[in-house]
């Protein structure tokens, strides 16, 4: 990486952090080895600048368009730009024998700086501990009847779960050959509203205090909605500047939007009005160890995985997916003696 090509202060800062990590002695990506059962991962990105950084740091790597054939046994793919990415199906076909770990940078913004930030946190996260914490939360849900209570900032959000609950999370650290997954499966235990029937495996009531917000847009969202996303992104900046921390009242798994004040209308439309304020997601971040490294100026998926709870509006395809995040807090099943805490400052 030519230093002259790195123009922003944020990128220079992230590169400095990464170079310090690389100079520290231990293999730079030793924390990822359990995911690949000891195999050295090969790094790919559709962002040529990011691919150059991989190379400078001594990581086996290539620009996605120049990927080796056949594909290596262990792959980490940073997907930064929906417009540049090839179709999933033929890409997956080429990688069908690999252990594949996706870093979906594009869904959260996709800038070079965000890619560097994600690389730094990827290299410093403890995926074994995360997976263990995921199991702890699943065990709590599987072995107790509920309802459950999340407590933070002196407020409580109570939720119950249906008899059959689909939950997205990793319970095993290691990927098998041919198996693919993405960052969020490790960093959170997530439940989502089903589309298009809008059924939710949870029923939530109470109050939730969001200290932070993030947004995501999935690849399937149509370009015709670009203007809507632009307006929503501007509104989110206003939320950050004026409304956080935001005390949210939830009734029958829907947000009482009055907390959004004059921004109600824009969020109603940007998160898909037909969802009528339903919570599209209820999730618990389990990447507890990154608390001191999180930089909230980035719109990064790593940030929602910080230990704590987050709830969301919108599905990211038909409109924005907005995460409202409460770091820390405590999750418990009252009366059962089972408690899972989030020990972060």
């Amino acid at each position, binding site marked *: 990486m030519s230093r002259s090509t790195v123009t922003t202060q944020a990128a220079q800062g992230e590169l400095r952090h990464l170079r310090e990590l690389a100079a520290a002695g231990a293999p730079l990506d030793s924390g990822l080895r359990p995911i690949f059962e000891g195999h050295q991962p090969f790094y790919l990105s559709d962002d040529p600048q990011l691919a150059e950084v991989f190379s400078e740091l001594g990581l086996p790597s290539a620009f996605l368009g120049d990927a080796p054939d056949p594909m290596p046994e262990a792959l980490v793919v940073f997907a930064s730009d929906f417009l540049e990415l090839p179709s999933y*199906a033929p890409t997956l076909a080429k990688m069908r024998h690999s252990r594949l770990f996706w870093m979906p940078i594009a869904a959260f913004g996709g800038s070079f700086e965000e890619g560097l930030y994600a690389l730094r946190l990827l290299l410093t996260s403890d995926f*074994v501990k995360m997976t263990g914490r995921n199991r702890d939360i699943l065990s709590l849900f*599987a072995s107790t009847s*509920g309802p459950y209570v999340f407590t933070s900032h002196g407020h409580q959000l109570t939720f119950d779960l249906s008899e059959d609950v689909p*939950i*997205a999370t990793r319970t095993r650290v290691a*990927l098998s050959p041919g198996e*693919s997954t993405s960052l969020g499966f490790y960093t959170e235990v997530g439940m989502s509203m089903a589309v*298009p029937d809008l059924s939710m495996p949870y029923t939530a009531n109470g109050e939730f205090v969001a200290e932070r917000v993030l947004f995501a847009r999935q690849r*399937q969202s149509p370009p015709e909605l670009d203007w809507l996303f632009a307006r929503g992104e501007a509104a989110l900046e206003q939320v950050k500047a004026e409304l956080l921390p935001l005390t949210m009242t939830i009734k029958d798994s829907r947000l009482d939007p009055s907390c959004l004040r004059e921004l109600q209308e824009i969020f109603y439309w940007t998160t898909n009005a037909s969802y009528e304020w339903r919570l599209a997601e209820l999730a618990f971040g389990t990447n507890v160890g990154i608390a001191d490294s999180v930089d909230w100026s980035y719109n990064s998926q790593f940030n929602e995985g910080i230990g704590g709870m987050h709830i969301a509006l919108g599905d990211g395809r038909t409109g924005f997916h907005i995460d409202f995040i409460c770091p820390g807090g405590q999750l418990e099943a009252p009366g059962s003696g089972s408690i899972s805490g989030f020990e972060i400052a």
Partner: protein
Amino acid sequence: MFRRIWVEEGMTPRGDILVRALQIPHYQDLESKGSADPNNNAATSDEIPRLQRFRRVHPTSCPCVEEWAT
């Protein structure tokens, strides 16, 4: 049993969503053997058959499935 949890952990080479049913007796059995220890992943990997169950949990009309289907 209080509930049945369908754990989505990722995707198969065909793009199917990888799902494993987590049921209490099975999980408690693992815990009693100590293999639910988060630092003992190897033992867990041995005891939970890999790529055990495949199931599309999204409706066929979901654009996610359409995009990933082969």
